[in-house]
């Protein structure tokens, strides 16, 4: 990493000198860089932005601990070409490049590990990286999908200068295995460009930026592919060539916001950034005065933590939808209990009850030396309704949520669920397990053929034909397009015991009959 010092008289970094020749001078006022706004040399920028770009973030969000020995790539599930979004170093060495179609990539590296991109995991990782950036400055801003920006002008003295700050940033990331590229520039947009280009520069003067433009490829702008293609047709490959285009024509062809973006990058135009706020949490530890070996012995300490949590929430008029209790042991990883609530709670009552259930179910692997209670993000909560009628309603809603929480705390989350019909002809796909209360009611045609009230998880072979009468069939033949096609004749069967069954056989008729439902 090299540092561009304000005093450095390197000619390449000086503001692009206006050509003296007559035709060029005539063109200059129209060029994308208006010559008037160049600030006086030597004046340090008022802001300095650190950009940390994580080029392989989609991959790293999914596979945090992959061995670099295996080639891996991430594709976008929504993309019809299923183009590679990013790949690890090994895959890159074997010739995979982002943008390559999946078929091509697999032809090149047959053993390629392919994962689908998960935006939620990426957002969570970026959020964690925002916390990392908060060690340098409180003003942190995110540029999804893969860049974190931080205004570090005020922190430079503390960290010993821009280069030292970058070095410190890189070294603190080195343990995480994330591939980061850091850059510092006077505007957030320019820092973004430099970081995406992977140049690793620290630029502290606005007037040094136009001189760097020749080293910035168009790709670092991350403009839509068609815009980049149109620019490539004009013979433009880097930012310097782009900046030589006439302003009016550029704005007319590519849109004024693209011009604004370039101006913002070069410091001609302010670009306010949205500050990333880290949600407040309750997080408290409590050391036990004597080690506890039973769950009951933890209760007094837990009570104190819960009372603190309740006061914390009440002071902020907030509720929480979940929390984590760590039981700390002497020389062992903490035992973790996670609680998720169906409805945000602000008082410790329901939490206490649920924690007691969880603790009763959880055997202590070792004696407990301390507790740590950490809440999920706070949710603003309306104050308790004072009206008598409103109160009845909210009490009912609370009762429904409390039942869910209690059952889930004892039985596990998967054991409690809701069901929802799906408009689909294949019987096994005409319903779905949902969160309780989830899914809107859909109108089911009353004239539809009869369906059993009970469904078997898997069709069972049906052979007990003693005294069985059948009626039907109802033919269901669909689904050829997604590889799970169904060709069946369904019959209603009455057994001798009077039970009504829903049975089918495959088409064309084989000898196998299957039981699929019971009319209940």
């Amino acid at each position: 990493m090299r540092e561009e010092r304000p005093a450095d008289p390197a000619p390449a970094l000086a503001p692009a000198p206006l050509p003296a020749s007559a035709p060029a001078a005539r063109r200059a006022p129209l060029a994308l860089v208006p010559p008037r706004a160049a600030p006086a040399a030597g004046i340090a920028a008022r802001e300095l932005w650190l950009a940390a770009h994580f080029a392989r973030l989609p991959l790293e969000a999914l596979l945090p601990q992959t061995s670099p020995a295996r080639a891996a790539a991430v594709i976008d599930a929504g993309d019809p070409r299923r183009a590679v979004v990013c790949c690890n170093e090994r895959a890159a060495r074997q010739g995979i490049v982002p943008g390559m179609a999946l078929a091509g990539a697999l032809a090149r590296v047959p053993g390629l590990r392919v994962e689908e991109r998960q935006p939620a995991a990426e957002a969570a990782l970026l959020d964690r990286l925002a916390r990392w950036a908060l060690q340098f400055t409180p003003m942190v801003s995110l540029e999804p999908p893969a860049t974190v920006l931080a205004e570090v002008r005020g922190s430079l003295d503390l960290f010993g200068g821009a280069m030292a700050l970058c070095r410190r940033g890189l070294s603190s990331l080195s343990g995480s295995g994330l591939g980061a590229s850091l850059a510092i520039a006077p505007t957030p947009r320019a820092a973004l460009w430099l970081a995406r280009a992977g140049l690793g520069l620290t630029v502290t003067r606005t007037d040094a930026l136009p001189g760097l433009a020749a080293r910035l490829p168009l790709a670092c702008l991350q403009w839509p592919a068609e815009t980049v293609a149109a620019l490539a047709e004009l013979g433009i490959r880097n930012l310097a060539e782009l900046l030589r285009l006439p302003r009016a024509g550029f704005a007319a062809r590519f849109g004024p916001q693209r011009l604004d973006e370039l101006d913002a990058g070069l410091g001609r135009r302010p670009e306010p950034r949205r500050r990333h706020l880290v949600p407040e949490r309750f997080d408290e530890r409590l050391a036990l005065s004597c080690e506890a070996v039973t769950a009951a012995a933890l209760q007094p300490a837990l009570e104190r933590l819960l009372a603190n949590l309740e006061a914390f929430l009440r002071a902020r008029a907030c509720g929480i939808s979940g929390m984590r209790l760590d039981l700390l042991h002497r020389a062992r990883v903490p035992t973790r209990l996670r609680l998720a609530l169906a409805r945000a709670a602000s008082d410790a009552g329901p939490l206490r009850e649920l924690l007691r259930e969880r603790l009763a179910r959880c055997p202590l692997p070792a004696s407990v030396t301390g507790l740590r209670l950490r809440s999920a993000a706070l949710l603003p909560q309306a104050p308790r309704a004072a009206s008598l009628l409103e109160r009845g309603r909210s009490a009912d809603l609370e009762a429904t949520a409390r039942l869910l929480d209690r059952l889930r705390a004892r039985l596990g989350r998967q054991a409690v669920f809701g069901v929802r019909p799906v408009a689909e002809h294949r019987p096994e796909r005409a319903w779905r397990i949902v969160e309780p209360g989830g899914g809107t009611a859909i109108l089911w045609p009353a004239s539809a053929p009869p369906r059993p009230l009970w469904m078997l998880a898997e069709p069972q072979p049906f052979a007990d034909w003693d005294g069985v009468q059948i009626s039907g069939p109802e033919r269901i033949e669909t689904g050829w397009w997604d590889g799970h096609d169904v060709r069946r004749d369904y019959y209603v069967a009455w057994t001798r015991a009077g039970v009504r069954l829903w049975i089918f056989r495959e088409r064309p008729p084989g000898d196998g009959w299957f039981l699929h439902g019971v009319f209940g």
Partner: protein
Amino acid sequence: MTDPLAALLGPRLWRGGGATPGPAAVSTGFRRLDERLPGGGWPRAALTEILVPEAGVGEIRLLLPALRTLAAERPEAPRWIAWLAPPHLPYAPALAAAGLDSSRMLVVRPQAGFDRLWVMEQALGSGACAAVLGWAETAGDTAMRRLVLAAEEGQAPGFLFRPLCHRDEPSPAALRLLLRAHDDGLDIEILKCRGGMPARVDRLPVH
């Protein structure tokens, strides 16, 4: 009630069955069954025990009209219809076709060996359920009594389905039925009903 015996005796003779007001009830949707039940339907805030020879004889179809009524009550604060440890999965399209809002269904499938009656007691006592349907093979006397109390406390009708072999055991349930299926309907034997008398309803057509 047009009972020939009642017509003969007239109002002079006090008869136990008629005098005790039955518990508040919700209509079963079947007139012949309603007539036999005190209060004219399934008792609310009480436990009903239904003995079935095997799962699927029509026990859910028998309950469907009442479930529709119960689910539609109090639309401003909808409550669950809880299915606790059912033998198979309730099939959402069939429930929707029967006119039940599937978003109010709460299905609980505890792991094998878990105390199912604890789940039922929680659901009944929570006040969050419009109706609770539970399946259990074994049920001790104490557990059954707890269910009865929970149903009273949570003001919820509970329906406990058990195999036929429990017929001769004593039960604290407010109503006990025994079902037998035929091609043309259900035979319902009322083994016990609080505030009423044992009776039979033959060939009740449930669809």
